[in-house]
């Protein structure tokens, strides 16, 4: 879909969240000069075309007790990348799984996935188990837990 000027105003208006009132789309429309129906149609179209990936609750995993947030990085031979990526992506506990470029010689890892858990030990045990069950013992990996979080906010759009 091609975004028009109104869409950009709508994108900026709802990025911080929908109003918690009984007619939220009407209220947004009032602020930017659109009627409720148009707001609903344009949001629908943006969801349909993937410009909005999801509309709903965005949780703060840290505050919900998911404090052990591990980035697991793998050095996967190129010819096995798709197989391993799909395997890992299908597992319940893995919430993101991306191929990224290696930066040799400093950084050999090309597959990144995120696991959010409530305790480090359990996350590590889970990774050990999946290395065994998925046949990944010969693929070097590293687990990077997050420490202090310095900045967390979504990207801002004007």
């Amino acid at each position, binding site marked *: 879909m091609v975004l028009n000027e109104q869409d950009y105003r709508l994108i900026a208006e709802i990025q911080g969240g929908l109003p918690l009132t009984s007619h939220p789309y009407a209220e947004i429309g009032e602020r930017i000069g659109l009627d409720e129906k148009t707001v609903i149609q344009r949001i629908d179209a943006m969801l349909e075309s993937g410009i909005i990936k999801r509309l709903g609750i965005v949780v703060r995993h840290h505050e919900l007790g998911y404090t052990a947030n591990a980035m697991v990085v793998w050095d996967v031979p190129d010819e096995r990348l798709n197989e391993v990526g*799909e395997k890992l992506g299908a597992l319940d506990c*893995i*919430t993101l799984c991306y191929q*990224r470029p290696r*930066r040799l010689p400093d950084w050999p890892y090309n597959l990144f996935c995120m696991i959010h858990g409530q305790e480090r030990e359990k996350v590590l045990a889970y990774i050990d188990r999946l290395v065994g069950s998925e046949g990944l013992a010969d693929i070097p990996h590293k687990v990077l837990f*997050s420490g202090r979080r310095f900045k967390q906010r*979504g990207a801002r759009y004007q």
Partner: protein
Amino acid sequence: MNRELDSIDRAILNRYQGGFPICERPYQAAAEIIGISESELIRRLERMLEQKQLSRFGPMYHAERLGGGLSLCAMRIPEEQYDQVTEQVNAFPEVAHNYARDHAFNMWFVLATETPERIGSVLEEIERRTGFRVYNMPKLQEFFIGLKFEV
């Protein structure tokens, strides 16, 4: 101290991370599915926002489809300079998240720029200001989408 989540809060979180009704009275439609009233759903969402269990209730945009640039970047910073470099990096409005991680590559942040071309120039500017190399690791392929926390 935050009030603990009860079973209705959990049902709301588990049901509405993935999507939300788009109709004239979405909270009423959503509340009906959970089996509570519209006003109770709104009250519970307000409380969870206030207690910071939710960061927001709204859209998650696809940055690239909006025409923007997005990348994950990493740096190796000596411990004694970590705080200072963190301050320098976070001063850039394009830095969206910045996490410390326990590895020689100990600083990880997401850059979000208005255009893809801006990524390179912001990176160079961060390198110039901090004196350390920035490793740019943009997404090349995505194997899974969605970030859903069962609570």
